[in-house]
């Protein structure tokens, strides 16, 4: 049994909220530079240069790369030998979000109720996904998710007979319909299989994988490559102003599913593909 203090979790979450919003990952910067080489539209190139410059300013000045500093989506992988002391785990996470967004001058974008819509004023509550795993560590991933790209996501329960073609058509149509709205070049997370909610979670988790790292299964990796090429043939381009690079990556995750089902979820992330993690 290993003890972890709730206060440590709060401090870690607060720091991750700020870092995620200020410092774009090296993998995303590399993808921007590769996109700049491949892009044939001058406007598209100009957009990519602005994004590289924007990321540099945000990191150097420790300011948010985007004014939409997102819904704080927090993944917790809790080792089964860990015991949390000194407070409620979820409250510790929410307190971390509260402090991170207040002290980091991040925008508070959460309303208390989907219909009454009063801003909570501190960007809480977070959306927290918890998984119990072997070991005595606690892994925390903070992935602030912007509203513009989240709104362009979707899920469909396909018939198994529609197969991989049905999956491809749905993913490509989803990105085409989104057009300029999710701030391309986007990262496309795809969840195939499981149940309704499992597919959505797989799609979200797919966004956490570093860009440039294909799925370990060769067949899925080939599907990712094929989808990326098809999406980049749509012509949407950076910011939807026309061009080659509509997506930086397509990440697919799969899970076993019911004999009657073929769920497919598409979670679109903007180019500010933000997530930071820590292991306690």
């Amino acid at each position, binding site marked *: 049994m290993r003890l972890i203090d709730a206060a440590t979790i709060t401090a870690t979450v607060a720091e991750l909220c700020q870092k995620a919003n200020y410092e774009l990952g090296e993998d995303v910067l590399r993808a921007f530079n590769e996109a700049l080489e491949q892009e044939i539209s001058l406007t598209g190139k100009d957009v990519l240069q*602005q*994004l590289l410059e924007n990321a540099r300013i945000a990191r150097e000045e420790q300011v948010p790369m985007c004014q939409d500093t997102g819904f704080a989506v927090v993944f917790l992988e809790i080792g089964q030998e860990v015991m949390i002391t000194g407070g409620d785990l979820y409250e510790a996470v929410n307190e971390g979000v509260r402090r991170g967004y207040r002290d980091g001058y991040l925008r508070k974008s959460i309303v208390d109720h989907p219909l009454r819509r009063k801003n909570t004023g501190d960007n809480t509550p977070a959306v927290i996904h918890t998984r119990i795993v072997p070991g005595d560590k606690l892994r925390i991933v903070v992935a602030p998710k912007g509203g513009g790209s989240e709104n362009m996501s979707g899920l469909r329960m396909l018939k198994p007979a529609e197969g991989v073609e049905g999956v491809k058509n749905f993913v490509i149509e989803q990105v085409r319909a989104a*057009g300029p709205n999710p701030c391309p070049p986007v990262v496309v997370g795809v969840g195939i299989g499981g149940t309704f909610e499992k597919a959505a979670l797989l799609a979200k988790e797919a966004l956490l994988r570093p860009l440039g790292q294909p799925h370990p299964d060769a067949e899925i990796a080939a599907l990712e490559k094929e989808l990326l090429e098809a999406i980049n043939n749509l012509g949407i381009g950076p910011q939807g102003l026309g061009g080659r690079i509509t997506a930086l990556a397509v990440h697919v995750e799969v899970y076993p599913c019911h004999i009657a089902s073929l769920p497919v979820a598409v979670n679109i992330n903007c180019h500010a593909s933000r997530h930071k993690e820590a292991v306690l």
Partner: protein
Amino acid sequence: MPQIRLTTPLTDEVVEKLRIGQRVLLNGVLYTARDAAHKKMVELLDRGEKLPIPLEGQVIYYVGPSPAKPGRVIGSAGPTTSGRMDPYAPRLIALGLKGMIGKGKRSPEVIKAIKQYKAVYFAAVGGAAALLARAIKSCRVVAYPELGPEAIHELIVEDFPVIVVNDVLGADLYDEGVKIYAGR
């Protein structure tokens, strides 16, 4: 690529010359407003009351900035999705609004109003919020402070970079751009 430097307020003569794909550097005053502020303005118009900002020749920037760090004019300030303002925009354009800055496609009704009343829709680079904030030289709340980041702010900008997306001819860069690059 060549850039056109413009100063607000914009006139019909200036707007008529703009074409999709042109890069523009805006100078002068911009007003910020998102859906909540638009809703309030349209409610005022419905009641026959005066708006808190002038519209004639003005440009509205669809943005909800992040809070300013101490010593700074404004926080990060990139465009939000314009489609949410589509139900309100034609009414403001008819009253003299000349320009809008945001990201994403506009409705056929907005595009029609842009053509009919000689206005322009610009895109700023979504997510380039730290970069765009550098072009904002002053910021003050002029209406609806209770809306927080969604309040109406008066910004003074210098060489604020935008791209013409919808012009007086009714053209749409989002449609034309895709046509040029699809399948290439």
